[in-house]
């Protein structure tokens, strides 16, 4: 299901070996594969159509570079075009102006607005700003409570609406309060609404007129299908969108909605939500998103997450070890600890191209308790055993099991997991581990 586009294209081009130039005929089939990939990723039909035409225009006549196969060449062009389409200089949230600078968050029901507001507030706070939060959602049961719980969790001040207050009134009072308390950024969470709901859209327009927000950010679910264009277009036509935040990117959705939304609104995608935890928000990287939409995995994000969790020296060391296939049990234990800082192991493995949906991934699953066991097992090994797993025979396994208070089966399982991890890691030793820029904090 997740075979990469490059693989498919390689097949297409196999019979074309020896062609020096990409021609109308020989890329026809390749473009059909590209089209499939984009449609499977939920990019809107029309957007795909236009995109394919622009790629065709660019690709025909292009010399196949000596270093690349025709398949790689097409992927490169497609990838570049996607990056150009989704990229923008303007990916920062503008925060200049008189404090408190208001930011308004809009979107459909259940796209993750409230969680996103809290995540951004936390980011802003970490960046030295003084945010103030308010929920103008008087409709959904317990929406206000949700924002308050999150606000308390990140220790950010918030406005507590009174019974019966209207959304506009709530926003005005919140703005006054933010001034009085010396806050410099006002984050306004709004109620989820359908994009053609006139009454609720009027409400947003009123808030926009009275407050007016420095930026209006559309929060959209990365799993959204073809309807993403209608949603984005509607919100943009009626309110004017300054940016997009794509949520639930930690799943396995290919996120074609990103391209659709960008194509119909022209607004940049500024952030992505990558988990339920309050710190799970990242800057948007068009190149990674392009790779993901094409089903090419997300190696760059994987590496960056690894970088923030590992310290530089250890990463270098790990890289060397992976290259030399010297990844020992000692390292394995180390990695397991560090990996927990990055999220689940399966999540990480899924970012590796081609491994998106490997069966039996569940065996990598390490629960919190499992990990304690693993440490105990590895600690019960001798230094030689940790360096060279090959010497661990039946007798040694028994001793290790006794020493760690586990069973031989546990030891066997651990060794299996270690070997599989080692195999996986060796697949990514393509030299990409170096020279990846760290995520730049995306606020001006």
């Amino acid at each position: 299901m997740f075979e990469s586009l490059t693989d498919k294209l390689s097949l297409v081009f196999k019979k074309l070996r020896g062609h020096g130039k990409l021609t109308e005929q020989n890329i026809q089939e390749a473009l059909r594969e590209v089209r499939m990939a984009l449609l499977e990723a939920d990019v809107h039909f029309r957007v795909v159509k236009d995109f394919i035409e622009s790629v065709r225009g660019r690709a025909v006549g292009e010399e196949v570079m000596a270093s690349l196969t025709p398949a790689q060449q097409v992927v490169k062009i497609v990838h570049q075009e996607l990056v150009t389409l989704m990229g923008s200089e303007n990916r920062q949230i503008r925060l200049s102006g008189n404090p408190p600078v208001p930011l308004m968050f809009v979107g459909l029901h259940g796209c993750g607005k409230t969680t996103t507001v809290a995540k951004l507030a936390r980011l802003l706070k970490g960046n030295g700003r003084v945010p103030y939060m308010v929920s103008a959602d008087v409709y959904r049961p317990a929406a206000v409570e949700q924002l308050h719980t999150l606000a308390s969790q990140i220790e950010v001040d918030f406005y507590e609406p009174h019974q019966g207050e209207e959304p506009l009134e709530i926003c005005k009072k919140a703005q006054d309060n933010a001034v009085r308390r010396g806050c410099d950024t006002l984050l306004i969470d709004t109620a989820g609404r359908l994009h053609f709901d006139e009454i609720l859209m009027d409400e947003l327009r009123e808030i926009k007129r009275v407050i007016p927000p420095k930026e209006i950010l559309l929060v959209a679910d990365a799993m959204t299908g073809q309807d993403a264009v209608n949603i984005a277009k509607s919100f943009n036509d009626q309110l004017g969108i300054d940016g997009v935040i794509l949520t639930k990117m930690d799943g396995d959705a290919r996120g074609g909605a990103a391209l659709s939304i960008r194509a119909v609104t022209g607004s940049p995608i500024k952030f992505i939500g990558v988990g339920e935890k309050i710190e799970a928000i990242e800057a948007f990287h068009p190149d990674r998103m392009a790779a993901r939409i094409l089903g090419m995995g997300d190696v760059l994000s994987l590496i960056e997450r690894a970088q923030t969790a590992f310290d530089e020296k250890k990463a270098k060391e790990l890289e060397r070890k992976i290259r030399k296939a010297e990844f020992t049990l000692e390292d394995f234990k180390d990695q397991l600890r560090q990996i927990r800082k990055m999220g689940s192991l399966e999540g990480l493995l899924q970012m590796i191209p081609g491994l998106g949906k490997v069966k039996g991934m569940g065996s990598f699953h390490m629960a919190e308790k499992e990990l304690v066991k693993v440490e105990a097992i590895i600690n019960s090994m001798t230094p030689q055993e940790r360096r060279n797993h090959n010497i661990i025979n039946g007798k040694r396994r028994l001793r290790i099991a006794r020493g760690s208070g586990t069973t031989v089966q546990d030891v066997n399982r651990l060794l299996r997991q270690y070997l599989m991890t080692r195999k996986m890691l060796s697949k990514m030793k393509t030299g990409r581990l170096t020279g990846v820029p760290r995520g730049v904090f995306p606020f001006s």
Partner: protein
Amino acid sequence: MEVRPTERTGVFHRLRRGLSKTHQGLVGHLDSLFSGRGAIDQDLLDELEEFLITADLGIRTASRLLEAIQDRTKSKDCDSPEKVKEVIQREILEILKAGERPVHIDQKPFVFMVVGVNGVGKTATIGKLAKYYQNGVERIIFAAADTFRAAAIEQLEIWAHRAGAQLIKHHRGADPSAVAYDAVHASRARSADLLFIDTAGRLHTQVNLMEELKKIKRIVRREMPQAPHEVLLVLDATTGQNAIAQARLFHEALEVTGIALTKLDGTAKGGIIVAICQELGIPIHYVGVGEHLDDLHPFNAEQFIQALFA
């Protein structure tokens, strides 16, 4: 086709209201696709493909349907664009009819376990389900087993109040299985008719959280054999191809017994359930068409197709 008048103004009207909006947007009106054309040509098939894909049926299902059409066009019984419309509707109906299996409440207490990814409308669906089954005498209990998300318990509490249900809750951060355990026992002790277990939204790729769900189900079954009688997966009609992955993984983990498709009052058509029905064979039990308490209805394949092609 059998359509009761109340439902016509209800579901169909709402579906249509939402769907007609789509047509004003990027998608051309389907009628103009089939009428005013003399022959079946490549253009018609291309436009049909566009229609199916923009309705989120997915490229695979769309291709399969188009192949069926192309096969038929060779024979006599499908020789005009109008016939094409008929044939394609029949093909889709055949797929969806297999998924049209209503829930029979035949146990007391009857236990629903409601699962799904974040933000699909699980809690609201429970509220509406309770309203749907509440006819004044039913004793209904909600179990607040979403102990993770901020204010999830409060949210369910408000829905419980609206729908006239009792609530079993612990505190935020409590073990959801423990809540389910208490709820099962409470439902027996209070001789409840229905028990709805609300669970925290989770992405289907999160193995630990899927394990947590399995545990909840296991505990419920241990305390009450045969329960949960329904494991209801809530899907958002706005979701694209990822809904298949959601359905597949939730099904693998929990043996989902049915689907509730929510947010059909928007402009999304929810065509993905055609693919889900075909590939996974999970029945579609309910559709959600609005924010009101009575905006939940049993799934009806004919109505769904009518709205799809409206």
